[in-house]
């Protein structure tokens, strides 16, 4: 490596700030109609509950179409046809148009809730609070939660709502729970979403679950990295397609892999497999392509962020030394 190593963390920090501004406040700049257009064009950005934002989350149309398009039509006609799945397919294609560019980097670089959790953790480090990781043996169980949420809250409950088996609140079950809705609306100064819906038992129960989760993550994120990302259904959805996009994390194992575990310590998602000597295990479902493991790997060319055959960035002792002068792998600043 010649010259100064490319400052990936700094670039990511600026991208996160910029994308937070775009996804949460973008509508103020481009106007409400263009925000709607952006919402259509960028289906995996912020939240449709924001009244002035520049995007919405792909989980919203999935619930909407599962409930209103599939569930309600089946309830009315009693027929299940392929035609009913067409809107879901179109949403999937629209989602994939951007996913093929970003892969799961959406989570690590764009998601406003992911960024907010990182900022809260940085605040916790400034305040010299304790840090906590997942207790040993919990990783597998916690990883399963996001799949459960994706299946039940994004598809099963909305379908049951559309079929008329459950009250209407179930038709947008995940949106009622999602803490990102609360964060991004609060960030625009809108406190309306913080008011609990008390329409019926489902309204209140789903809403209460959301507020509990939101409150928990606000304080937990100060001492634990990315507490919500670990159970986020959007991460699960992205993970489903991670092999279909060219951007990915790869590993060329080194004999010392698994010994220093610096990459594992740097990973905001605490993915133990990133330190594994097995190359095939490195790009896990939980990986958000943030690139911190690459920066904190002290060996040359072991970890790489690749776009198809092109290496965008790779680990290097110089890069490791440069970032280690500023911060520890766990996020603590030096000095």
């Amino acid at each position, binding site marked *: 490596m010649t010259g100064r190593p490319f400052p990936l963390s700094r670039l990511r920090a600026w991208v996160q700030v910029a994308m937070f501004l775009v996804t949460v406040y973008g509508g103020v700049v481009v106007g409400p109609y263009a*925000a*709607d257009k952006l919402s259509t064009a960028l289906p995996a950005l912020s939240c449709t509950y924001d009244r002035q934002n520049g995007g919405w989350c792909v989980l919203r149309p999935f619930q909407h179409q599962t409930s209103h398009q599939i569930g309600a039509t089946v309830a009315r006609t009693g027929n299940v046809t392929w035609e009913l799945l067409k809107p879901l397919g179109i949403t999937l294609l629209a989602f994939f148009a951007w996913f093929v560019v970003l892969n799961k980097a959406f989570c690590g670089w764009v998601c406003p809730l992911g960024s907010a959790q990182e900022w809260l953790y940085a605040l916790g480090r400034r305040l010299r609070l304790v*840090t906590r990781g997942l207790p040993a043996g919990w990783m597998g169980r916690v990883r399963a939660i996001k799949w459960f949420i994706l299946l039940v809250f994004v598809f099963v409950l909305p379908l049951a709502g559309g079929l008329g088996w459950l009250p209407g609140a179930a038709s947008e079950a995940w949106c009622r729970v999602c803490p990102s809705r609360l964060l991004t609306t609060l960030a625009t100064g809108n406190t309306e979403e913080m008011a609990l819906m008390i*329409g019926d038992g489902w309204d209140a129960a789903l809403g*209460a679950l959301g507020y509990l989760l939101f409150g*928990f993550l606000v*304080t937990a*994120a100060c001492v634990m990295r990315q507490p919500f990302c670990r159970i986020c259904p959007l991460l699960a959805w992205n993970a489903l397609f991670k092999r279909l996009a060219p951007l990915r994390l790869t590993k060329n194992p080194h004999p010392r892999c698994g010994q220093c575990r610096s990459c594992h310590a740097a990973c905001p998602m605490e993915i133990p497999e990133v330190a594994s000597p097995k190359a095939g295990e490195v790009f896990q479902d939980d990986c958000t392509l943030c690139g911190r493991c690459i920066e904190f790997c002290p060996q040359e060319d072991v970890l790489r962020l690749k776009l198809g055959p092109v290496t965008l960035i790779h680990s290097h002792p110089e890069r490791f030394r440069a970032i280690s002068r500023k911060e520890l792998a766990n996020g603590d600043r030096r000095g």
Partner: protein
Amino acid sequence: MVVFGLPVLPGWADLPAWTPHPLLRKEVKGRGELRVAPFSPPSGELSFYSPDPETPPFTTTRVGEEATLRVESGKGNYHWIALHRNEPERELSLATVHFFSLVGPSPQAMLAVPKSRLEIVPSPLPREHSVYRAEEAWDFLLRFDGLPLAGQVATLYAPGQMAKGFRSDERGVVHVVFPEFSKPSGEQKTGHSRRPLQPFQLGVEHVMAGRHFTSVFQYEYGPAPLFHRSPWMGWLVTGVGMGGGLLLWRRGRGAKR
């Protein structure tokens, strides 16, 4: 009852009492289909304006009859629907919009083009999943021959509410605060979020060279933002969640410095 000097015709006895203007009745037939019926004396023509500037407006040829509008994917979003009626000394424009939940162009170009001499232009229209709501202020532009109409009073009518006037500023903009929501009535329907909606009309009149112009914008509004919601419950439960997270701040088992 007299509407624009015309006697009430048979079948008009049930014209709602909350507005002095005629009404447009919309019936959603599907995601891309809408039936519109003028609930007014059978004179005037219905016109449909697409948000796509390339699509010319469609006007019904048989005056006073209902019409069905079908749009295809890629041509959805807001459409402007207007009933125009010209009489020797009077001109009426009764307009409403309908949001087709299909991908389509922004309605900006559609709103910018004058569609009648006197008109009320929402600026902006609510986003998809959003509605006008009681206690909220929304802007509407009053325009005559395409130019802002300053100092004119627009009157808001809604079921169960006193008519209320709003004067336009120098830019021709009226800041309309939607009134309280009436108790459930036959005028209400349920919106996308299962919240009730009820109609409103915003009307303005203007006289130019002895000719009387009336423009009415008709749409729906919902109850106030905190309808069936409890702020303190929301904050309380959030506080409980925060308390749970604070337990992780304790030094002790599993905590690292």
